[in-house]
């Protein structure tokens, strides 16, 4: 359906851009991970510190991502379906983590939850340590990835309008049924991508987590911190193997969420003419 003379140049231009900008760097990572053979890579991957880092990262993702998903869908519904003074403010607040450097987010969290911080003081007196332990990492990861689900779901909710939901309501459906049968299917694509973004962000987060975790090897060292540590110790093998593990985790999530037949259409449209 595109005029033939634009199709090929555009395709090759795009592929060239992607090759330089994405394929090469990512390919290099994979190449360097397996440069010395599968055995060496496996050896690096199964080192105790590496495995613990992987486990911790997945655990953090398993908590932070659902939290942000529920929050994201909830806020999107609130913003799209209700009108109240200050709605724009809530929208802006949700966007704040986007505009904050991860380093700043980490610092800000410590200002509040560190031992000398606003809440940290109070918590420490009761023996609860948030920073430098897993809860702190979860918080930092959740904070940096907060906006993505909202960002993907809210526009969809705004676009599709309320007719279907209102129709269902007037026909007697309860709110949760409306949500489950009408809203959810409609936002599925946006939600899927929002969750993917959130997951990828949590998996790859470094700056904020570096600051709030203390990076105790074998205890609070996430995979990104492990990678950074490996680079510092001139152990690139471990670093790149870790990076491959992260990429694969993200890919798995992406595949799981979007590569069903139904959703294939979401990305690639109806059969290209």
């Amino acid at each position: 359906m595109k005029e033939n003379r634009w199709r090929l140049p555009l395709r090759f231009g795009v592929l060239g851009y992607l090759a330089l900008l994405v394929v090469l760097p990512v390919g290099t990572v994979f190449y360097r991970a397996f440069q010395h053979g599968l055995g060496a890579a496996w050896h690096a991957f199964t080192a105790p510190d590496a495995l613990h880092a992987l486990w911790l990262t997945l655990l953090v993702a398993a908590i932070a991502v659902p939290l942000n998903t529920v929050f994201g869908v909830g806020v999107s519904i609130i913003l799209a379906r209700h009108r109240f003074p200050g709605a724009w403010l809530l929208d802006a607040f949700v966007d704040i983590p986007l505009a904050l450097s991860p380093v700043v987010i980490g610092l800000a969290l410590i200002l509040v939850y560190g031992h000398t911080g606003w809440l940290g003081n109070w918590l420490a007196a009761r023996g609860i340590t948030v920073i430098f332990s897993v809860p702190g990492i979860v918080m930092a990861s959740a904070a940096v990835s907060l906006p993505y689900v909202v960002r993907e779901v809210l526009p969809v909710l705004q676009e599709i309008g309320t007719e279907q939901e209102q129709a269902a309501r007037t026909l007697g459906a309860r709110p949760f049924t409306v949500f489950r049968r009408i809203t959810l299917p409609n936002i599925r694509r946006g939600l899927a991508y929002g969750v993917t973004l959130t997951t990828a962000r949590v998996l790859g987060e470094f700056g904020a987590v570096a600051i709030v975790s203390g990076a105790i090897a074998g205890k609070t060292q996430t995979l990104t911190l492990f990678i950074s540590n490996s680079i510092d110790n001139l152990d690139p093998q471990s670093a790149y193997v870790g990076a491959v593990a992260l990429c694969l985790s993200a890919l798995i999530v992406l595949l799981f969420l979007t590569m069903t037949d139904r959703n294939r259409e979401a990305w690639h449209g109806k059969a290209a003419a």
Partner: protein
Amino acid sequence: MTNLDATVADLGLGPPSRDPAPAERGPGRGRSRRYSLVAPSSALAHAGVFGKKAAGPALAVTYLSLLVLLPVAALITNAFSGGWHTFWAAVTQPEAVAALELTLIAALIVAIINSIAGLAIAFVLVRDDFKGKSVVSALIDLPFALPTIVAGLTLLALYGANSPFHLDLAGTRLGIGAALLFVTLPFCVRSVQPVLAELDAEIEDAASSLGATRRQVLRRILLPSVLPAVLAGAGLAFARAVGEFGSVVLISGNIPFKTEVASSWIFSLSQSDALPAASAVSIVLVLISLLVLLGIGWARRRFDVPDTV
């Protein structure tokens, strides 16, 4: 089946009633715009999932406060802990100004470039077909999952002094641009792709068959439809670029006044026990980024033209 029929059938309630369905909504257009046009009270009563009005929003706000609002408030307090004078001194320090300038301009340029590139890529992914297309599509998200230090290291290896392409971008602003392009690409592509996919090609075909040239179709039908999505992607890309540290700092060389980005300067300040100054510069950075995001959001709404068909 109209939308209403589908709804009713979906719920398994009653026979479908022939409701004169709203004129077909066209490519992804809803009847209601930004915030519901229903009056507040009935909107709250139709409160979707959160029947008890207060529970949901209260939880959401608490979550938001714990994770974002409180820390930001602490940041603001910390920034002004030395008084307005110290705040101003930190913000107007030449090195800070240089870093802020560099960061904002670089982010803007990168957002623009990747918006165009993202649109082109999305176009190819949606409208074109070739072997290995799904592989390419899956790859696009990987820069996002790659930890920034690894990205930085790899970019340095590929485009630094020992680059296999004899392309030494290390220590240059171009290097910063390359790193930022790398990490922001997924946003620009993925914001546009679903919208493009959903666009009804029939309208374009109809226009063509009515005599519109390719260029007219592009300009009058395609672009206006995707422009909001492109702007959304640009906004995300800009915000990410502004805060980016790990992937940029290696290839940029981090030279003060030349290639030092704002997040790096903020990090330096925090390491030098100048936390209030770090907070101050962060606040300014956030404010400016938020302003740009708000501006983009406004532009999106403005370009979201109602149906004319």
